[in-house]
C-alpha cells in the first residue's frame, strides 16, 4: 500500500521546504541552521510532547533528547517520504512514548485521572484549517464509532496505553485491543481507497 499525499498542508507546504533546507544544512553540522530550526519548530514539538507528559521537567527532557536526535539524524531525513515537520514530530512522539512507558509501565497509575480538563484536548474535527491529508483522515475517523474514535485520539495525542484506555472506558484490555485493531484496519482501508 502506498501513502498518497503523506503529509500535506501545514506540515509540508511552503515553510516545509525551508525546514528541509535547514535539515540538510544541519546534516553538514551547521550550528546556526540548528538554532534557526529549533526556534521555528520547538513550540510545535513541545505541543506534541507536553500533551503526553504532564510534568514539565520530563517534557523538557524529552524535547532535549528529541533535538539531540534530530541533530544526529538530520542526514537521514528523506523529503520523498514525508514533510520535515512530520519527520521531526514523529521523533518527538516516539521519544515521548518511550519515556512515558518507562516511567509508567503497564497498568500502574491512572492516567485518565491525570488528564487535563477537556478544554485542553486536541480535537482535529474542530480544526479550522485542514490540509487535504487531514481532511481525508478526519473523513475516515468520522466513520468510526464515537468511543473508538475517542480511544484513537487519546492514544495519539495523550499517549494512553491499552491498559490506560481500558480503565478510561471501563472495558477489558482485550476489548480495547479489538477496538484498536478494528479502528486501525478501518482507517487503513478508508485511507487506501
Amino acid at each position, binding site marked *: 500500500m502506498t*501513502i498518497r499525499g503523506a503529509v500535506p498542508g501545514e506540515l509540508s507546504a511552503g515553510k516545509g521546504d525551508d525546514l528541509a533546507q535547514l535539515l540538510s544544512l544541519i546534516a553538514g553540522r551547521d550550528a546556526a541552521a540548528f538554532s534557526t530550526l529549533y526556534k521555528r519548530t520547538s513550540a510545535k514539538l513541545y505541543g506534541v510532547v507536553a500533551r503526553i507528559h504532564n510534568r514539565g521537567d520530563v517534557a523538557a527532557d524529552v524535547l532535549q533528547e528529541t533535538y539531540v536526535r534530530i*541533530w544526529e539524524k538530520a542526514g537521514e531525513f528523506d523529503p520523498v517520504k514525508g514533510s520535515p515537520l512530520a519527520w521531526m514530530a514523529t521523533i518527538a512522539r516516539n521519544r515521548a512514548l518511550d519515556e512515558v512507558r518507562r516511567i509508567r509501565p503497564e497498568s500502574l497509575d491512572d492516567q485518565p485521572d491525570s488528564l487535563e480538563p477537556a478544554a485542553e484536548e486536541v480535537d482535529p474535527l474542530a480544526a479550522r484549517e485542514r490540509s487535504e491529508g487531514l481532511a481525508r483522515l478526519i473523513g475516515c475517523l468520522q466513520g468510526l464509532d464515537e468511543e473508538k474514535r475517542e480511544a484513537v485520539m487519546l492514544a495519539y495525542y495523550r499517549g494512553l496505553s491499552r491498559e490506560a484506555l481500558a480503565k478510561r472506558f471501563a472495558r477489558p484490555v482485550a476489548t480495547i485491543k479489538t477496538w484498536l485493531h478494528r479502528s486501525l484496519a478501518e482507517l*487503513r482501508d478508508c485511507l487506501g481507497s
Partner: protein
Amino acid sequence: MTVTPDDDFAAAEYALGTLDASERATLAARRLRDRELDEAIRAWEARLAPLLEATPEIEPPRDLLPAIEARIWGAAPRSPVDAAFIALQRSVAFWRAAAVAASVIAIVLAIGFVAREMSRQPAPREYVAILQKDGASPAFEVTVNLDKQELRIRPVAARAPPGKSYELWIIDAKLGAPRSLGVIGDKSHAANLFGIDPAAVESATYAVTVEPPGGSPDGKPSGPPVFVGKLIAVAP
C-alpha cells in the same frame, strides 16, 4: 506490503502509541533489521501524521536551546540531573585512575584505528543489543557505532532499586576481566569505546549489574549480571 497481518497491527499500534515498553523496544529493535517492518511502521506514522497539524503549539521553557547545544557540542554538562550524575561518577576514585590509563591506551590505539579506517570507507558499522532478564522483558537498549567508537545505553523499562545504581560492563575473553562502561542513570548514557579492541566490542557480552550508588567501589562487578545481551549488526 509484505508484512504479516500481526506485524502490520503491531506497526499500527507502535505508530498509534498503545504498545507497552517491552513491545515498543522489541519492535524498535526488529525494525532495524527488518526493512519491511520498518516500512510498515513508517506507513502507519504517515497515515496518522496529519493529526499533528491539529496539535496546538506550546512554548517550551526558555533555557532549553543552550542546554541542547551544550549537549550537541559535548562541551558542557547536559542538564542539572546529568551534571549531578556525572559528578557522582567522577567521585569514584577508581574511575579517575582508570580514565587516565585508558586515555593513554586510547591514543595509541586510536591512531592505529583511525589509520585503518581511513584506508577504507565502509558503511557505518552500527550494532544494537537489547539487554534483558528473559526473552520477554527487555530492559536496556544498547547501540554501538563502531566507527565513532561510541556506545549508548538507554533504559527501556528498568529502574535501579532504591539506593542502588545500575552499572554497565563489557565482558569478553579478549579483554580479560569485565570492564566497566560506566554507571547508568535514568536517561540515555554514552560511553566511548576508545582503547577497546573492535573485535571484542563486536563479540562481547554486555551486562548490567546492581551496584552501590555511584558504581562498583573496586572496579569489579559486585554481583551477577541482572540484564545481559549481545550485539547484532544493524542492516545498512
